[in-house]
């Protein structure tokens, strides 16, 4: 079974939670007891329809205010795929949650209220999906029932969005438009009789047919060492295994590798997964690798193919998305976590702030506040081994930790 991770983005009242509830309901993924709870609460509130948002808004404050505050994960499956939806709130102040949701997703649904059309929020949602290089974006034009399923309204919104698409940086993104009514169920799982002019797929049909080839960004293999396994038992007296996850591409027994930062060369001797050996460690597998030679390797080091080295540097330029209530300032003390590697970071300069609604940049910025996006120059106390984000989604990204509070305060995409 395939797993597909999807992020959702929409403004308050665009009907995101309702859309997710509809997907669960029409795929019969909602169990009877959960459905009964929704029926009961909907009735108590005096609604004459089922309020599916009750299925996803898990916190008391969210149900009270009728809004989604935090990223929630929702699971449903069809006979062919397992889906994980990161339901992220669409308020201006919660951009950070959207970036978070998009970082682990291969596809994204942007909701637009058909009565409102493309608004400033839509610009932001698209900008973030483009910044994070989410491969497949579905623009769901929702509440079509409230505009009499008008083809003209749909076409106008589509044209507005296509204008917006001209500004995007990441051109390889697949973008699909679907007219839906989450509340009534049109074109979500089942095709609608109300939109005879729409010849495309329903939302679920589109997701079901997404080809895996098209939704993963791949690159060259990178193997950051998480943990060194030394059993020191009689049976495995000299065993030194390097445990980690493979990113970008795959590694094979016999591959010539270089250990960073020591630049020592060796060859992959064995690849273990649990107590068995394999010839290949595929992309995203958590394996244990042994080398032909006795090489000094510790956590934070990286194995790469000898003919394909990343950039090894103590300086970098990146676009960062700030997520903390404490401002990002050039004087601040930060830890930079790149994969499993942690180094100290100093801010050399904030080059400019980027308005995430495509309205341009702002220079001479002294600090960044939550939800700001900016191009910055950082200096590190030790070199890291990185690729550009556009070439390698994993090895081209990092998080910034505020060393006073230990919180994850920002995320960066290396240029």
């Amino acid at each position, binding site marked *: *079974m*395939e*797993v597909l991770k999807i992020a959702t983005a929409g403004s308050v009242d665009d009907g995101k939670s309702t859309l997710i509830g509809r997907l669960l309901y029409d795929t019969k993924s909602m*169990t009877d*007891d959960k459905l009964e*709870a929704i029926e009961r609460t909907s009735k108590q509130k005096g609604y004459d329809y089922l309020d599916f948002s009750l*299925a996803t*808004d*898990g*916190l*008391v404050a969210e*149900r009270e205010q009728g809004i989604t505050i*935090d990223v*929630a*994960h929702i*699971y449903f*499956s069809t006979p062919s795929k*397992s889906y994980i939806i990161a339901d992220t709130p669409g308020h201006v102040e919660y951009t950070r*949650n959207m970036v*978070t949701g998009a*970082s682990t997703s291969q596809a994204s649904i942007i909701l637009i209220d058909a009565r409102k059309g493309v608004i400033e929020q839509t610009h932001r949602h698209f900008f973030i999906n483009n910044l994070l290089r989410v491969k497949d974006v579905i623009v769901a034009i929702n509440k079509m029932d409230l505009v009499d399923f008008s083809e003209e309204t749909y076409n106008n919104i589509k044209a507005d969005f296509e204008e917006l698409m001209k500004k995007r940086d990441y051109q390889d993104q697949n973008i699909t438009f679907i007219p839906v009514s989450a509340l009534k169920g049109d074109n979500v799982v089942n095709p609608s009789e109300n939109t005879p002019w729409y010849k495309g797929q329903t939302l679920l049909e589109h997701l079901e047919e997404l080809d*895996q080839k098209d939704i993963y960004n791949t690159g*060259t293999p990178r193997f950051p060492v*998480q*943990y060194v*396994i*030394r*059993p020191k*038992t009689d049976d*495995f007296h000299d065993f030194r295994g390097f*445990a980690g*996850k493979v990113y970008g*591409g795959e590694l094979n027994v016999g591959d010539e590798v270089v250990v960073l930062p020591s630049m020592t060369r060796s060859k992959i001797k064995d690849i*273990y*997964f*649990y*107590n*068995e*050996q*394999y010839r*290949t*460690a*595929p*992309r*995203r*597998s*958590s394996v*244990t690798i042994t080398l032909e030679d006795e090489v000094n390797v510790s956590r934070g080091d990286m194995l790469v193919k000898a003919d394909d080295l990343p950039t090894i540097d103590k300086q970098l330029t990146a676009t960062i998305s700030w997520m903390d209530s404490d401002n990002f300032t050039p004087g601040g003390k930060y830890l930079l*976590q790149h994969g*499993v590697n942690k180094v100290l970071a100093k801010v050399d300069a904030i080059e400019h702030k980027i308005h995430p609604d495509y309205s341009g940049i702002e220079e001479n910025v002294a600090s960044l506040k939550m939800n700001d996006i900016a191009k910055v120059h950082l200096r590190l106390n030790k070199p890291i081994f990185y690729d550009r984000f556009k070439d390698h*989604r*994993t090895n081209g*990204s990092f*998080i910034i*930790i505020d*060393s006073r509070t*230990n*919180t*994850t305060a920002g*995320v960066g995409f290396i240029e």
Partner: protein
Amino acid sequence: MVIDNKNDIALSTLAEEIKKPGTLNGAERPSANALEHEAIYIIREVAAQFEKPVLLFSGGKDSITLVRLAQKAFWPAKIPFPLMHIDTGHNFPETIEFRDKLVEELGVELIVRNVQDSIDEGKVVEETGKYASRNMLQTTTLLDAIEEFKFDACIGGARRDEEKARAKERIFSVRDDFGQWDEKNQRPELFDMLNGEIEIGQNVRVFPISNWTELDVWSYIQKESIEIPSIYFAHKRNTFLRDGLIWSAEDDVVFRADDEQVEERMVRFRTVGDMSCTAAVESHADTIDKVVSEIRDSRISERGARIDDKRSEAAMEKRKQQGYF
């Protein structure tokens, strides 16, 4: 660069191929279960980033699955942290038996802390009445044990699909000095990067199988041929009905009124919590294959048989804020 994506790990959950132990005589590639590789990555991060981690072991299928994942993460070395069981004293005897056998096989340390001791020390008061349960009381015993051993990371088997407050939970979830969960102020988790930086006194709850569903867990147990306690399989049991749920009548722990008729039924348990709050379901699934197909067709969620969640819409959120698992 062209890469054949058919072979990528992120693409599939359960591998089609099951192979015999040996050296390079089976498949070329390891299992293609993306959730398994994700969980192993998380468990290794715990061992690397924390000084005193512990695996919270309840004897239930989720924590048994965690143990197997931890074995896989560190083989051929032993699991580099102890297991801890917070014993309510109301466990199904089958669970305790199973726990002791497993620990012996693994050769890891098992720590047991008892809710009864917290009651005897006057730290918590036993609930009374028809719905009395020790489930809530576990929190105090757990927090005391974390403090006693100075654990900085507790690995648990909670899953996001279980309950909607859990759907908001992080993989590394920071708890303050008082063991409390601040649900509105959680650290963002981006890509694969897990931030384990904490202050002294804080600890992190870690949930490696966050993204697994109940069916994923059962399918994994099936594929890996993992042993689980017998009460997960259909068996004959003396039971009685209350609030539409089936309760075990074979132990004093579960309160039963005189007018609640005992009847023998064919049942199994879908979750193995405290006996006083875990109801059985009617079932004839007496093998793992039958259990997997039963779960696949089920119309009732797993926690539908947990009375502790039915106390209110926000029952789980409240318990989590106080430091529950």
